[in-house]
């Protein structure tokens, strides 16, 4: 019996130790750093709550955070709404070409985020494809999509759409569509089938997709940098500036801790709001 | 019982999971060319015993010997066994041929030998026409035969069968029962057959080991297990029977039922004290039914339903006290009509009497 116990320990312990070392420990370091100070690019090892006081009282950071929050909610909701029909189509009508469809969703990821954002900028900017065409046709350029939060919004949709589609797709592909037929036999119309059977049973997958777009949007730094314009600074961009440009690491760390706590709370609220049993969750593990 | 003739020997084997005893001090000797069924309800520990023999699990106590060699610590893949699972567990990514060849390849047999053996096993299991199909393209019965073939192909020391027929429909099951028994006789290796279905156990095996709550309840020839159950559990579990409560009369030679107005002579080999509370088990086919107007002793009942079971008739009787009893009789041209009032009785030699609570005392 020693054998089986050892095996069982190792199998769970290796990934756990890995995460403890390289995930929990760094986050702890971040927390520690957030209680220190930076002065002229140097870390001062004095314990203080000043960074948090600053974050809680300075209008600028609160503004960044609220902007990011609104953006993240908007982006994630839109993405879920977009991802469902796409994933549904691939699962229902994709047939043997499903794998091709899902691979095609992955390809854009092969080009770096920076490159894709520059390309997007080239398309959405004042002289970009869209506005260039508009100008050539004699129309006024769309001010809305250049260097604005709307431009950031489009970029977020662009960046995270494949991720959300894939998540919903994975959920739907494990969904037994005979259940929909069963509901149909019970007299449900299309709409009712969707709201009563298909949606609730894929809710947990959808929530994962939602979170996978929500979290990176909340902390995004590149998108607002390239496309946000003067009023587009988001929380993550400001946080990255603390580490990259202004060298105010401690404040940045505090911003990171706040972001992490908020993400955790958001995740907890979302998962509590959902009755897992009603989503067909049967628990994990078979033994 | 450590005689040289025992081919597989299971010696005081126990398996604990924490405080829970899945298997409690079981000993079993199996000789070569024997077909033994391990019969028990689900959760009784019969599958645990099979897994211990296969080596997929290790006993907490006790030893297991194959041909006189201690294999208790031996890894399962070195035991040279074959095993057939309830879910078949054919490898879905391999054809029938590859599935059959798998155990041979694992034993590093030569290529020619592998082909020969696969042809042979496909021949006796009539799988020759479907060797290049994938398991998903086969019917349940065909999959069953492939699973059996995979278990047999490498000439194992013994074959373990874990409810292999549970997923088949009834007709196929009866067909396979005969087949499997035939292969066993043909190959001359022991088959250990785990099932919760007593019909399968009775129809196929030479001996039956009844397991309940991790303990070996009974072990013996199938006829003996059926006709002379040693414990109330075996009496209840093997064959279909009805149970009655009774009390031994002061004379010490008669038993009177508590709920019914019926008494019968205590068989001479049973010794109970007067006043003992007893449980009486009667196999459904051992009942006598006589129309009431004929008179005589018996539990007054009424026929509420008659079910046709092939060559047998199953009478569903309701006693005057409201209990339901089933009696099986050979089919006759003039079955007892519905609602007919009858008397239910049995030959004292055909019933099994145990002291009330005997099952609990054993625990």
């Amino acid at each position, binding site marked *: 019996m020693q054998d089986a116990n050892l095996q069982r320990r190792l199998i769970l*312990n290796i990934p*756990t130790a890995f995460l403890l070392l390289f995930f929990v420990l760094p986050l702890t370091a971040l927390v520690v750093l957030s209680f220190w100070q930076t002065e*002229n690019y140097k870390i001062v090892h004095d314990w203080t709550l000043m960074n948090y006081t600053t974050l809680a009282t300075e*209008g600028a950071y609160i503004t960044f955070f609220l902007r990011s929050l609104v953006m993240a909610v908007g982006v994630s909701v839109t993405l879920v709404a977009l991802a469902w029909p796409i994933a549904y189509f691939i699962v229902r009508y994709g047939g043997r070409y499903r794998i091709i469809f899902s691979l095609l969703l992955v390809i854009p990821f092969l080009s770096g985020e920076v490159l894709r954002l520059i390309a997007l900028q080239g398309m959405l900017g004042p*002289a970009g494809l869209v506005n260039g065409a508009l100008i050539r046709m004699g129309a006024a350029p769309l001010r809305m999509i250049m260097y604005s939060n709307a431009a950031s919004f489009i970029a977020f949709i662009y960046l995270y759409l494949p991720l959300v589609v894939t998540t919903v797709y994975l959920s739907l592909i494990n969904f037994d569509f005979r259940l929909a037929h069963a509901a149909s036999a019970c007299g449900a119309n299309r709409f009712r089938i969707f709201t009563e059977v298909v949606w609730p049973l894929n809710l947990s997958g959808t929530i994962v997709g939602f979170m996978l777009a929500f979290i990176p949007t909340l902390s995004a730094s590149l998108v607002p940098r390239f496309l946000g*314009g*003067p009023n587009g600074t988001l929380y993550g961009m*400001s946080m990255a500036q603390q580490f990259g440009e202004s060298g105010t690491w401690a404040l940045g760390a505090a911003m990171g801790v706040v972001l992490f706590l908020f993400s955790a709370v958001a995740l907890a609220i979302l998962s509590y709001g959902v009755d897992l049993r009603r989503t067909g969750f049967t628990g994990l593990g078979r033994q | 019982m450590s005689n040289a003739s025992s081919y597989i020997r299971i010696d005081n084997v126990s398996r604990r999971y924490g405080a829970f005893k899945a298997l409690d001090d079981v000993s079993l000797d199996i000789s070569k060319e024997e077909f033994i069924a391990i019969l028990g309800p689900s959760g009784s520990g019969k599958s645990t015993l099979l897994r211990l023999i296969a080596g997929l699990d290790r006993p907490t106590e006790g030893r297991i010997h194959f041909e006189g060699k201690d294999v208790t610590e031996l890894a399962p893949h070195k035991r040279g066994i074959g095993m057939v699972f309830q879910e078949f567990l054919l490898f879905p990514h391999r054809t029938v041929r590859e599935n059959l060849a798998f155990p041979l390849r694992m034993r590093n047999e030569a290529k020619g030998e592998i082909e020969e053996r696969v042809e042979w096993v496909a021949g006796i299991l009539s799988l020759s026409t479907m060797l290049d199909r994938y398991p998903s393209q086969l019917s349940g019965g065909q999959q069953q035969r492939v699973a059996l073939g995979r278990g047999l192909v490498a000439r194992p020391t013994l074959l373990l069968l874990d409810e292999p027929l549970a997923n088949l429909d009834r007709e196929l099951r009866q067909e396979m029962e005969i087949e499997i028994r035939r292969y066993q006789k043909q190959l001359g290796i022991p088959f250990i057959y785990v099932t919760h279905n007593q019909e399968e156990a009775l129809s196929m095996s030479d001996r039956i080991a009844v397991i309940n709550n991790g303990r070996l309840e009974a072990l013996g020839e199938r006829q003996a297990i059926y006709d002379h159950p040693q414990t109330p559990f075996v009496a209840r579990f093997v064959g279909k029977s009805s149970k009655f409560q009774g009390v031994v009369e002061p004379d010490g030679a008669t038993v009177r039922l508590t709920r019914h107005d019926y008494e019968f002579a205590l068989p001479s080999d049973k010794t109970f004290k007067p006043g003992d509370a007893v449980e009486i088990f009667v196999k459904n086919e051992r009942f006598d039914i006589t129309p009431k107007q004929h008179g005589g002793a018996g539990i007054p009942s009424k026929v509420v339903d008659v079910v046709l079971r092939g060559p047998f008739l199953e009478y569903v009787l309701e006693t005057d006290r409201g209990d339901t009893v089933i009696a099986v009789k050979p089919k006759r041209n003039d079955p007892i009509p519905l609602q007919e009032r009858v008397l239910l009785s049995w030959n004292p030699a055909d019933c099994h009497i145990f002291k009330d609570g005997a099952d609990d005392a054993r625990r």
Partner: protein
Amino acid sequence: MFDTKLTRRSVLVAGATTALAMPFVRPSWAAPDTVRALMWEAYLLPDQITAFEEANKVKFVPSFFDGNSEAYNKLRVGGSKEFDLVQADGFWPQLYFREGLLRAVDYSKVPNASGYLPEFEAEAFKVLSDPKSGKKIGFPFCWGAYGITYDAGKVQPERTETLECMFSSDYSGMLSTSARFEENIALAALLVTDRLGSRDKPRPDGKPFNPYVLSDEELAEVEKLLIQQKSLLLTRYQDNPTLFQLLQSGAVVAATEFAQVFRQLLTAEAQGAAPVDFRHALKMKEGGLGWVDTWLVTSGVQDGAKFDLCNSFIDLMISPAVMKKIGEVAGCSTTVDLRSISNETERKLFLMDRSNEIADLFMFDQPSSPEKWERVWSNVQAA
């Protein structure tokens, strides 16, 4: 919470994994045959690098950065061991040297150093000397300013004589500035201190006026000014091509920049783009910001083969031919006298005869308090 306390076994496993991974961890300084540089990407000429690699039988490994503070952060986190050569501008090299991140250099080992313009000669260019010991700490490379590039057809040239034009509502929505916070604040500070007349009053650091050392009051004014400016900006550009496009398409008529886009615009015009009268104002009446990019050697480099390699790399970089190419590619003015190998237009375009003006510009510097400047910038972004 988890029953996975670090058992002895898992520690052993972790140890074994680490041991297996050691070849990877070996820092790159252990590799003898590489020269590693932390530099601006624009100054990288692949063919020159290949030539250098072949001539010296080494591998040149560049890493790139965007702003000075970013490079500074990288250097401080052990980077002086990770890199041999570093680039920086303005007063940053002095800071690096004070922090022990750099080593002193030897002009005598770099023959091409004799070709510097008078302003950049070792004795004259004090920015690259350690004020305490007088040791030379690096080689000047390219220089420029943070002036205003404008479309003279839409902005009268006389309006660019003052910084006010970058804050004028006449050009609302058609202005752009760099996304870098230091230069934006420093430039606004020039205007603010000029308006307040606070330059001649005692400065916070007791030294002569420097737009990078500001009092809280001035910073507050700067913040107000920059917030007002925001509504006038189309965007703060991240990269030169974006600004190039914005200026060329007419979406932006005036922008503060490093004179690089200006030169690219002129080059494009020479190559056949629609003619627009682009001009560049180097220094406004309130003053201007200047920069000199340099090559520095980190304190991780010991005398010997590695140091010689660094010197010969710098020598190659400041050789007239390479310098000219870099000037053309990156669009910057050079510190080496190239007049003998340049034509009239190039001399004008690359300010070869105006290098003395660098003396009047305020050099890029470290903000007096990164924390306060960061707050100002955040407030501006959030407003």
